[in-house]
């Protein structure tokens, strides 16, 4: 469970806070969405969860441990339990697909034979077993994100942070990546925290969501709570689309 307690982040004195006293809870095994316009603080909040950004004040409790107190080796070990995927994929272009997926295992000091077996397993999970020897530049956007997901899961993290992971992809590829994330959540029990500016993404896979504006929490709750609350703007935006009737 992740508990964010009164987290604020200010980049420079006199500037408006990127995050202003944000508190929220993310239940284990859930898919949690953070929405808001650009500049609302979504990305800063997500990056506080693995301390890529250090909060100016407040606490981030992950399974009871306050991340903001960690530095050096303890912080790096904690980060191995938190996978992350990115809008720009951030794969290493000097390595092929299999070697990209192996990076977190190398960092964790997993022996070579074990790494090879684990990488094969992960590539099968994301459906890219036949691309093990390919280089990132030879892959489509959707394939690159699958490699990113395999890499993020390599060290068996308890949490997966997704930074606009589908924003660079076309709608069909987005749907397949979201389906993969949901499968991973169900099968492996990995808690997923994602930020997105597309409400459809939240509607498709999230259990709970929070909306941010100007660094503050505007609304939060489970999807059902939000949708059932007539006064919730986020709930209305996330309402099931009744006009569309799918055949078959």
């Amino acid at each position, binding site marked *: 469970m992740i508990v964010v307690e009164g987290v604020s982040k200010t980049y420079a004195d006199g500037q408006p806070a990127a995050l202003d006293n944000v508190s929220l809870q993310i239940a284990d095994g859930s898919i949690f969405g953070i929405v808001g316009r650009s500049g609302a603080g979504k990305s800063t909040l997500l990056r506080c969860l*693995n301390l*890529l950004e250090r909060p100016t004040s407040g606490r981030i409790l992950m399974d009871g441990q306050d991340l903001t107190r960690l530095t050096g*080796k303890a912080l*790096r*070990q*904690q*980060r*191995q339990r*938190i*996978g*992350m995927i*990115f809008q*720009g994929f*951030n*794969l*290493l*272009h*000097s*390595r092929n697909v299999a070697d990209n997926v192996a*990076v*977190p295992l*190398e*960092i*964790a000091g997993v022996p070579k034979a074990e790494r090879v077996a684990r990488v094969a397993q992960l590539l099968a999970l994301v459906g890219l077993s036949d691309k093990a020897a390919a*280089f*990132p*530049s*030879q892959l489509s956007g959707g394939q690159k994100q699958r490699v990113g997901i395999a*890499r*993020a899961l390599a*060290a068996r993290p308890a949490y997966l*942070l997704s930074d606009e992971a589908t924003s660079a992809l076309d709608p069909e590829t987005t749907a397949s990546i979201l389906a993969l994330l949901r499968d991973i959540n169900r099968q492996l029990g990995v808690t997923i925290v994602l930020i997105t500016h597309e409400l459809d993404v939240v509607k498709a896979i999230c259990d709970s969501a929070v909306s941010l504006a100007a660094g503050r929490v505007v609304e939060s709750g489970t999807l059902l709570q939000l949708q059932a609350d007539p006064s919730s703007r986020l709930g209305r935006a996330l309402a099931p689309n009744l006009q569309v009737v799918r055949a078959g």
Partner: protein
Amino acid sequence: MKTDWDEVLQLLLNATGETLYMVLLAGLFTLLIGLPLGVLLFISRAGGLFPLPRLNRALGAVINLGRSLPFVVMLIALIPLTRLIVGTTLGSTAAVVPITIGAFPFFARIVETALDDVDKGRIEAIVAMGGDIRHVIFKVLLPEALPALVAGVTLTLVMLIGFSSMAGVIGGGGLGDLAIRYGYQRFNNQIMVVTVVVLVVLVQGVQSLGDRCVRSLAHRR
């Protein structure tokens, strides 16, 4: 004046040997000093991966000082240091000291720039998965920048060939020295021309070999 081509050939072979000796040895030392220094310059920047702003500023100042001296001045100014390091101030080996000192600040800046061009997101990905500074340097920075680094080595080697041609000032020999002593001071145009041809071939060879390495490295990326 009749030219004894056997003698010319002998002179050319000796001079080419001296040039290659100076360039390769100075190139090796330039790489050994410049590469770690370039990495240090990059990671020690304010707001960088391992911020040491004071050290960074001091290093930057020393490097700029090294780069602002004309090489031929440095060659003379460094004579006491050369004596300290190699025990003599004359000859090709002695010339390696000022050539290296003239070249490594330049190469360190090239390395710094090449590392700066590596996508910041890739660095962040390694940090996010719990990597430390060594992981960032050896798994991201150097491998991802490798084509740019090889291009930088090529550029530096060509510059070293230029530096080595001034080594004659301290008796270092080499092709530049041959061209000045025979071609210029003795008005021997044939020697001047063949020396120029050999230098051009040398530079072209280094450049096309470097380009080929860069292409094959970048090929699959």
